[in-house]
């Protein structure tokens, strides 16, 4: 009894530290003073970085809630024309990388793009004669990111609504609440942890985004870190900027924890019955269709249409063996990385449930910080310790074997998978934690008192209870890795490309149209897991078969 918790803690701490290592490695520079560069930053661009980042986060936060929440509620509780389609289709924007949706909308809505050109042709207006919102702006970045990130809120909120016992809602109604009251006073507060999880995933992704803001010329912390590290060549100031960004994230997380204070969110009723979906008719039905169709159209159908158009009209190279290789590499990396992340998340999540002391809690939190860190920073953070280890190994092998063994870690797929884990652990961890949180502690107690070991409880009780959660964690990371670019670009081995790399190379050479086909394939490969995801959630409501 005395040894086991200690062992657990050591394992947890070790794993958490290992995952946090790259971030800590970059932060190694934090204590190197860089007063001159800071003076320069303060005098010139720091205010911009701060304000733009703040507006971006607030804007995307508002945007994803606005797009995701109403759609989640409607699809859980009501029936209206097309609802069966929207139910899963609303997850599709998840398959669309943010930088790619940015390319497509810029292509369409830019001043020199087809829409505005047509407008000018028809009306005879010139530049300055009319107002047209500029896509390449802070507002544009907020819109693009909201359009592809709202499914996180939709996904988790809908799962939460579906898992709520109907009894709770019925009781609220019999106690005199109307539909709106029972939504705002019962369903919404009960779903709060899930909604917050979705929101924080979306916001962390926003903070880590580099492709979109850079393409739109919006200077944020992320672009600032790059500029300081590479342009000014100052690693200390850059990592201090990154540390500031992390501080930002940490404060957000603490605020949420604090506001939740001692409230817990287990389901206490085991009585479930099929919810009779409320049938919407007339204008209400059309309104519901609009609420669901708009995000789907803007976040998926229109940009995919543009990609299709590009692929069909201009793409020179068709699907050849090289291209199939790209697809295979992308799928392989995504599958392996999502399995690793799930395994790690289970160990950390369950370990934390068993030993809920502040130290464990903190180390698990730190391990999951990577989601808000830009991929390039993580890649360099991974290289620092791995390259060091390689050097040491080579010293040893020279001493003992008389020859060097080359790079064993750096430049291998293992390094890349490790980096993905650092970057995306938060996704699987948060999902697994949310799933575990819904299982009452009395279940564990009952299991243990009936003779199950700690592992037995996880294996025999928890895992079967949260099959849906596990699948969700797996697929979310899968789709994320499929879209990942910066870390892949830096860490990949020789002659190893993925779809995202190919799309980036063409797009950054300003050949947007040629980038259409690989982009389309990323989306296509992401669609299948997204659909499985949606089906599994549909089945997750207790009492529905």
């Amino acid at each position, binding site marked *: 009894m005395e040894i086991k918790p200690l062992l657990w803690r050591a394992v947890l701490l070790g794993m958490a530290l290992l995952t946090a290592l790259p971030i800590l490695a970059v932060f190694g520079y934090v204590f190197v003073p860089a007063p001159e560069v800071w003076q320069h930053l303060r005098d010139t661009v720091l205010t911009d970085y701060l304000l733009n980042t703040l507006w971006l986060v607030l804007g995307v936060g508002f945007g994803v809630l606005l797009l995701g929440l109403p759609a989640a509620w409607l699809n859980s509780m009501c029936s209206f024309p097309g609802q069966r389609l929207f139910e899963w289709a609303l997850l599709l924007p998840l398959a669309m990388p943010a930088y790619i949706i940015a390319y497509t909308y810029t292509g369409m809505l830019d001043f*020199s793009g087809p829409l505005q050109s047509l407008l000018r042709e028809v009306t005879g207006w010139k530049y300055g004669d009319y107002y047209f919102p500029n896509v390449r702006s802070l507002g544009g970045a907020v819109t693009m990111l909201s359009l592809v990130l709202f499914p996180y809120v939709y996904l988790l909120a809908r799962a939460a609504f579906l898992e709520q016992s109907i009894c709770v809602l019925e009781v609220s109604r019999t106690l005199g609440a109307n539909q709106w009251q029972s939504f705002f006073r019962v369903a919404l507060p009960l779903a709060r942890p899930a909604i917050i999880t979705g929101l924080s995933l979306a916001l962390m992704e926003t903070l880590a985004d580099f492709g979109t803001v850079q393409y739109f010329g919006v200077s944020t912390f992320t672009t600032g870190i790059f500029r300081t590290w590479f342009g000014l060549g*100052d690693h200390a100031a850059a990592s201090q900027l990154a540390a500031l960004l992390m501080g930002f994230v940490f404060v957000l997380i603490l605020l949420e924890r604090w506001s939740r204070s001692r409230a817990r969110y287990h389901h206490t009723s085991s009585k479930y019955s099929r919810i009779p979906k409320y049938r919407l008719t007339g204008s209400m039905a059309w309104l519901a269709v609009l609420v669901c169709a708009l995000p789907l159209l803007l976040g998926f159908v229109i940009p995919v249409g543009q990609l299709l158009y590009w692929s069909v009209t201009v793409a020179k190279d068709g699907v050849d063996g090289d291209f199939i290789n790209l697809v295979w590499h992308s799928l392989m990396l995504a599958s392996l990385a999502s399995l690793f992340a799930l395994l790690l998340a289970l160990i950390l999540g369950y370990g934390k449930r068993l030993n809920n002391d502040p130290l464990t809690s903190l180390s698990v939190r730190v391990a999951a910080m990577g989601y808000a860190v830009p991929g390039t920073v993580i890649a360099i953070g991974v290289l620092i310790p791995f390259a060091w280890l390689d050097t040491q190994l080579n010293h040893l092998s020279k001493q003992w074997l008389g020859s060097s063994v080359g790079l*064993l870690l750096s430049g291998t797929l293992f390094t890349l998978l490790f980096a993905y884990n650092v970057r995306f652990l938060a996704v699987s961890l948060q999902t697994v934690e949310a799933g575990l949180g819904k299982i009452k502690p009395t279940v564990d107690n009952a299991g243990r008192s009936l003779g199950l070991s700690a592992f037995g409880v996880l294996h025999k009780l928890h895992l079967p209870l949260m099959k849906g959660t596990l699948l969700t964690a797996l697929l979310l990371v899968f789709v994320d890795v499929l879209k990942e670019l910066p870390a892949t*670009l*830096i860490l990949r081995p*020789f002659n190893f490309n993925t779809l995202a790399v190919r799309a980036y*190379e063409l797009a950054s050479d300003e050949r947007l149209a040629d980038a259409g086909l690989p982009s389309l394939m990323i989306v296509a490969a992401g669609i299948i897991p997204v659909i499985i995801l949606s089906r599994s959630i549909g089945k997750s409501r207790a009492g529905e078969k």
Partner: protein
Amino acid sequence: MLKKITLAILVASLAAPAFADGEVNVYSSRKEQLIKPLFDKFTESTGIKVNLVTGKDDALLERLKLEGENTPADLLMTADAGRLHRAVEMGLTQPVESETLKKDIPATLRDPANQWFGLTSRARPIFYVKDKVKPEELSTYEALTDEKWKGRICVRSSDNIYNQSMLGSMIAVNGVEKTQAWAEGFVRNFARPPEGGDRDQIKAAAAGQCDIALSNTYYYGQMLTGEEAEDKAAAEKVAIFWPNQQDRGVHVNISGAAVTKVAKNKDNAVKLMEFLVSDESQKWYAEANQEYPVKAGVAASEMLKSWGEFKADSVNLSELGKNNAEAVKIMDKAGWK
């Protein structure tokens, strides 16, 4: 079963890249589609296999530095001279003695100490809208701060290395203070906050948002030869003006290569560089990507010829790298986003 597959792939991935005799390992920030076809030809004619990782300049430098003496990379290729200079400063490269390279590449386009070599060159001239600007109104980069250009200039973000290098070349001739004053005046004349890439500046000019744009020559060339009708139409509305012809010449940059300090296949790396300045390769660059050959005597493509002869800035390109941090600071201060 799944675990076994995972394990198998992991083990396979752990195997380090092989160092057979017939190989050369390249880290390149030139995009794959711009070099792979030449590599394939190289392999065909020499039997030497080329292994390639592409990426962003600085990230690749960082990887090279961190991998230290164990790096498998033999050759570093970048699309900018400043970055090659940085690699030299970081101690990541070694000098190469090759008569072919010295003979074929002009002295301004390679490192004085033979640490790096330019393989193709591109200019960054001024593009003007033909029916709004007369070429007589233009003269130098410096003159673009004139009041008459207020609200008429399009240029991309200062995050971009081509702008940083251009400023670096100005610092080399005019000094920090004058360049600072120039940047402030230049920014005042912007038609819009910088956005998009080089092609977007030309498109915006063609569409009427501004009258003057800065862009690299090959983007303009690709727009003219590409398959997108809109791009082509936009490019046809503008023309090239070669600035500073009376003094230092138009700003040019290169794509180039350097052999890494610990290259295990140095001979093959040098062979590859020599192949890349052969007539055949230089011609391919000119035809496929509208870049200027560095080798004297290789004819530029018909299109490049049609743009006319020009005097290129003869500052040694190492200066761009030396002045990079200063250039970024100047643009920050000037409010060049």
